[in-house]
C-alpha cells in the first residue's frame, strides 16, 4: 500500500525509505521485508537510531525531508493510505487467542486521520516548500519530541539494553530496558521492543503478544504491557492527533 503510493509519486521526485526498528536486526525483519518485496530502500535499524536522531517514539511513524536535506515534518504517526486502512483486520484468522481479540479492539479505537495525512503528503509532493504542510525549520524543531537530560539518559539505557540482548545477555538487559521505560515514558517503541523480546510461544504471534503469557503470567519482567498500558491512557490517546 505504501509501495503503490511510492511508485505513483516517484516520477514526481518522491522517494520512500522504510526502516525496520528491531534489536534482532535482519533476523527479525527479513520475513516481513521479503513478503513486501520493496522496490524502495528498506533499511534495518538495530539500535533505534531513528529514536535518537529523529525522535521517533512509535511505529508507524514518518519524517518528511525535502530536496535539500531539510526536515519539513518531524516524526509523527503515519497512517496507511486510506484505501488500505482496514485491510489487515479483514485478513486476520478467526481463531485468535482472547488477548489478541482485546488488542484488536483497543487498536481499532486508536485515533487516525489517514485522509488528512495523505492529502497533505500529496500537497507537499506537488507544491514543495509552497505547501502549507511543509513546516518552517523553527517549527520543525519545536514540534519534535521534548527531550530533557533524563530522557537522554533513558535513550542510553535503551541502547545498552538492546545490545546486551543482541549479545545474548537477556537477564542483564532487562534492568536497562526498565530504566529506559521509566525515563522515556512517551516512547512506545522502547516498550514494544522490550516486550517483543519476551516471546510467548514460538508461533507467528509470539512477538505480538506484548505482555504476560497465559501459562506463566508471574514471569513477566515488566511493569506494563501493551494492553494494560493502552487501557490505562485510553486508546484514543495512543497517538497524538494529526496536526496540519
Amino acid at each position, binding site marked *: 500500500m*505504501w509501495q503503490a503510493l511510492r511508485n505513483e509519486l516517484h516520477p514526481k*521526485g*518522491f522517494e520512500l*525509505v522504510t*526502516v*525496520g*526498528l*528491531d534489536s534482532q536486526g535482519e533476523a*527479525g*525483519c527479513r*520475513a516481513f521485508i*521479503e513478503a513486501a518485496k520493496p522496490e524502495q530502500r*528498506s*533499511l*534495518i535499524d538495530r539500535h533505534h*537510531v*531513528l529514536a535518537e*536522531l*529523529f*525522535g*521517533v517514539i512509535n511505529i*508507524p*511513524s*514518518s*519524517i*518528511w*525531508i*525535502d530536496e*535539500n*536535506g531539510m*526536515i*519539513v515534518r*518531524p516524526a509523527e504517526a*503515519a497512517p496507511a493510505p486510506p484505501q488500505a486502512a482496514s485491510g489487515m483486520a479483514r485478513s486476520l484468522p478467526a481463531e485468535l487467542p482472547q488477548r489478541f481479540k482485546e488488542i484488536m479492539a483497543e487498536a481499532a479505537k486508536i485515533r487516525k486521520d489517514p485522509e488528512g495525512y495523505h492529502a497533505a503528503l500529496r500537497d*507537499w509532493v506537488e507544491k*514543495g516548500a509552497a505547501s502549507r504542510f511543509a513546516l518552517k*525549520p*523553527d517549527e520543525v*524543531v519545536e514540534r*519534535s*519530541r521534548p*527531550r530533557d537530560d533524563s530522557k*537522554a*539518559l533513558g535513550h*542510553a*539505557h535503551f*541502547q*545498552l539494553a*538492546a*545490545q*546486551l540482548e543482541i*549479545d545474548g*545477555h537477556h537477564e*542483564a538487559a532487562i534492568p*536497562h530496558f526498565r530504566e529506559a521505560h521509566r525515563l522515556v515514558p512517551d516512547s512506545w*517503541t522502547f516498550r514494544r*521492543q522490550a516486550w*517483543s523480546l519476551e516471546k510467548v510461544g514460538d508461533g507467528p504471534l509470539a512477538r*505480538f503478544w*506484548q505482555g504476560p503469557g497465559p501459562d506463566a503470567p508471574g514471569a513477566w519482567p515488566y511493569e506494563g504491557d501493551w494492553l494494560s498500558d493502552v487501557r490505562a491512557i485510553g486508546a484514543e490517546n495512543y497517538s497524538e492527533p494529526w496536526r496540519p
Partner: protein
Amino acid sequence: MLLRSLRVSKGELEAGTGWQLKPEGACQGEVCIPMPGSAGDPVDVEAVAKAIGMPLVAAPEHGLWALGPASIGSRALASAQAPDLRLPGLDGKEFRLSSLRGQKVLLYAWAPY
C-alpha cells in the same frame, strides 16, 4: 550510540550521534559547540560526551558503553537539517540518506512486533 571502546573515529561518532567534529567544535547542522582539542581522531568519547552534554551509561562487565543523545534546546531535533542517517539493508550494504538529495523523502519507521 553503542560503544565497545571509549575511543572512536570521527566518522563513527558522526554516524552514531549526528555530531560532526569540525575545527570550530562539535556541530549538528548550524549548531556548533566549541570543543578544545576537537581535532583529535580517534575521539575521546568521555570528553566529547561531557562537552556536548550526552549521557554515558556503562556495562563494564560486558565491555559495553552507550552514549545517549544531547538534549540541546530541550527537543529531539537541534536543527531541521536532517542528520545523515546511515543504515544497512538486508544485503548488509550501508545506505546514506544524503544520497537522495534532490528528491523529497519520506522516512517510514516500522517494526516486526
